[in-house]
């Protein structure tokens, strides 16, 4: 079957196309084009009758290319492709021509010119169809082992969830014990349960789980590979461990911002909320008058975001102080009290009932510490107050860990302007990275409280399970192909690709770009920028696009 034999099917789509274009005329015109051996108009090409006609025509006329001129590939390409497949034709030998959404519907009052446009579109479609090549999807096996980086509440929950589905898990923790930030906390809002109870219960479950291997005092040193087949090098003290993983979950958490140089922070009488938690844990609180200041180091020019866990934390700690000593005085100086949700607004109400004093300040008139008292302008009262204190507690934001960027580079995933890991889509793919096979949960992504970290961990575990449960990932046939003789190994393609799907490697012929089919999304950005023009984008080759351009420029016969 060397001869190219194109069949063109022009759809009336009832009156949607037929009512505005000369559809029989278009079919007749199509038959006049080079390589077209069959052309026909149908009432509804997508109907059972229309599809049967395609299949029959392929068999009877030995068609090896099918062109349908009808609605839009965005809705109907899969249907016609599978019809081609049923007819014994490779589905990538199908070409769509949009003459409804982008022609008959938008030029309803000029049948003549619209029909001329449809002719040009069909001419372009046929020109490309002639050059189409059969393509095959291939499959790559997925190693059913997950690497979870970070042993805080998010990482531990995720590891347990993955193990409960029967997958092997390697849980890597930088510190010498599991627990993360929660290990430093006293009680958790809004339930006031002991943080250490929660952490210890999880850690115990992990210890007992034969599917999970924990490596403490360990860090990821290097990562190679792609979804399903990652090669991980972990640094464990002086030693290095190598293992394979199919998927990766980033659960490295965040840290508390230390307000050095702000409000006379000294770690003794002016401390942070986290330091207050430690004092609680040790049972050493000795202060009758406590002033808390919210939004210290956040929601400003340097750090614009709201860390959102600090308001409930302040409420909780203020309540704990009042609980321990009802005669104590607690002031919370706030800009806006952020207590979203059905539970937290009640929680705020409860805090107010305990006699905590809330004072609103504005960012233009920040509180000032002088002579063992806090001077603050009360926005609601409209006057300046002076509050003597035994202890000042600064509510500082959670910030990205300083080694987050380093890890991001090793994994080749992005971080946002604040250094937090950046998800693939803020709404639609909240725990995925754009790179297949890598996921995230907990504070590594954004300041989150315990329950949020846990739900994200379940989400990430669920997402990460998908390729491991399926057992393989399908590789896109719309991928670039590198002409190694032309490739100079310059790495521009590697820098261009956001999916790490093309990489320069040492080969017998020198440094050459290699395509990692399993990671490629088929955008074609690498090829259109290649300095040597050594990359061909399958299914959207230069030749195919140029043929369309030339066909458009041709004067209709």
């Amino acid at each position: 079957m060397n001869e190219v034999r194109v069949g063109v099917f022009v759809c009336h789509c009832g009156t949607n196309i037929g009512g505005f274009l000369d559809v029989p005329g278009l079919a007749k015109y199509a038959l006049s084009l080079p390589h077209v051996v069959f052309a026909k108009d149908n009432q509804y090409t997508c109907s059972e009758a229309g599809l049967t006609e395609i299949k029959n025509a392929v068999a009877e006329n030995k068609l090896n290319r099918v062109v349908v001129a009808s609605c839009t590939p965005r809705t109907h390409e899969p249907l016609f492709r599978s019809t081609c497949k049923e007819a014994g034709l490779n589905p990538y030998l199908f070409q769509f021509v949009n003459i409804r959404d982008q022609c008959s519907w938008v030029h309803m009052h000029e049948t003549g010119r619209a029909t001329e446009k449809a002719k040009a579109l069909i001419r372009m479609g046929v020109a490309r169809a002639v050059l189409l090549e059969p393509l095959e999807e291939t499959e790559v096996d997925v190693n059913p082992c997950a690497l979870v980086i970070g042993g805080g509440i998010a990482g531990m929950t995720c590891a347990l969830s993955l193990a409960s589905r029967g997958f092997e898990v390697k849980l890597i923790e930088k510190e010498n014990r599991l627990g993360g930030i929660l290990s430093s906390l006293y009680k958790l809002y809004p339930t006031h349960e002991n943080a250490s109870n929660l952490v210890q219960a999880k850690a115990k479950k992990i210890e007992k789980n034969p599917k999970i291997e924990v490596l403490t005092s360990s860090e990821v040193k290097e990562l190679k590979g792609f979804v399903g087949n990652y090669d991980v090098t972990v640094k464990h003290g002086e030693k290095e461990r190598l293992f394979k993983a199919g998927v990766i979950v980033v659960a490295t958490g965040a840290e508390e911002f230390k307000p050095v140089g702000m409000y006379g922070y000294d770690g003794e009488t002016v401390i942070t909320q986290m330091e207050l938690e430690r004092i609680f844990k040790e049972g050493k609180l000795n202060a009758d008058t406590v002033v808390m200041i919210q939004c210290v180091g956040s929601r400003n020019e340097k750090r614009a975001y709201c860390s959102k866990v600090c308001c409930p934390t302040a409420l909780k700690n203020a309540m704990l102080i009042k609980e321990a000593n009802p005669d104590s005085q607690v002031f919370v100086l706030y800009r806006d009290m952020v207590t979203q949700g059905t539970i937290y607004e009640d929680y705020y109400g409860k805090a107010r009932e305990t006699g905590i004093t809330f004072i609103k300040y504005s960012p233009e008139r920040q509180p000032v510490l002088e002579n063992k008292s806090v001077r603050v302008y009360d926005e609601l009262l409209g006057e300046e107050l002076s509050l003597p204190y035994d202890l000042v507690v600064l509510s500082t934001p959670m910030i990205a860990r300083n080694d987050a960027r380093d890890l991001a580079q090793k994994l080749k995933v992005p971080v946002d302007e604040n250094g937090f890991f950046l998800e693939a889509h803020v709404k639609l793919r909240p725990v995925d990275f754009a790179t297949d096979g890598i996921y995230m949960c907990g504070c590594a992504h954004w300041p989150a409280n315990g329950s949020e970290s846990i739900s994200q961990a379940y989400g990430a575990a669920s997402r990460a399970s998908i390729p491991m449960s399926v057992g393989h990932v399908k590789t896109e046939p719309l991928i670039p192909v590198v002409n190694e003789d032309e490739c100079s190994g310059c790495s521009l393609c590697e820098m261009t690709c956001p999916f790490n799907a093309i990489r320069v490697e040492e080969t017998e012929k020198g440094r050459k770009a290699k395509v990692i089919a399993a990671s490629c999304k088929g955008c074609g950005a690498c090829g259109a920028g290649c300095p040597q023009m050594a990359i061909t984008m399958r299914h959207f080759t230069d030749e195919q696009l140029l043929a369309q351009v030339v066909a458009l420029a041709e004067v209709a016969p």
Partner: protein
Amino acid sequence: MSLKEGFEPDILGFLCNWCSYASADLAGVSRMQYPPNVKVIRVMCSARVDPTIVVEAFIQGLDGVMVLGCHLGTCHYMTGNYYTERRMKTTKSVLKKVGLSSERLLVDWVSAAEGERFATLVRKFTEKVRKLGPLGKETDLKPEQLKTRLTAAKEALAQERIRWLVGRERELVEEKNVFGEKVSQEEFDQLMLQTVEKELAKRRLLLSLGEDALSVKEIAKRVKASPREVLRNMVSLEHDGLVSVVGIEGNSPKYRRAGG
């Protein structure tokens, strides 16, 4: 479409599958009416559009080209349209050097939800190109001359130097190089312009040389440039391995296309 009714431009549109093509479909579903001058080629991402293909469209005689992608920051492929933006910026400057109006190339962003915006862009662009007139009307070049210049432009855009610079722009301008230096946007644009000018001049020399063996003086006469400038570019072409010296005529070296 008789000539009496006035000039109707032929326009090619490259639309990305995820945003701009979807917006065109939405315009259809909403029955928004716009002129039928634009014919569309669907690509997965606007970053697939190689600058050489855009120039080829003009070589083929089309009057305008539009490249529409997702809004910056919302590319289905994360960063694709940033590359489109930079590549098309260079393409526009090359078209300008050729003598064409850079307004014949429209680069813009449309989301899948912006059917009306798509229809408006098509209306406005069609009107703009209609006003510009048939391709080359803004130049005093004969059609054949314009075609030669565009061919030189296409070859220049296929050149390693320009493509490498375009590909590295973001990195060079936004990040520091290995020596800890940052290039300002103005410096980069200047460098790019010089490179474009030089590559274009070289490609034009190469095209004018054809299959002949010519002295620098003769070439200078053909392209109406100073022998000094021609010599400099011929040396550079020789360095690229595209021409070789085949003799000396008086004190002027004779060149021929290499490998031919």
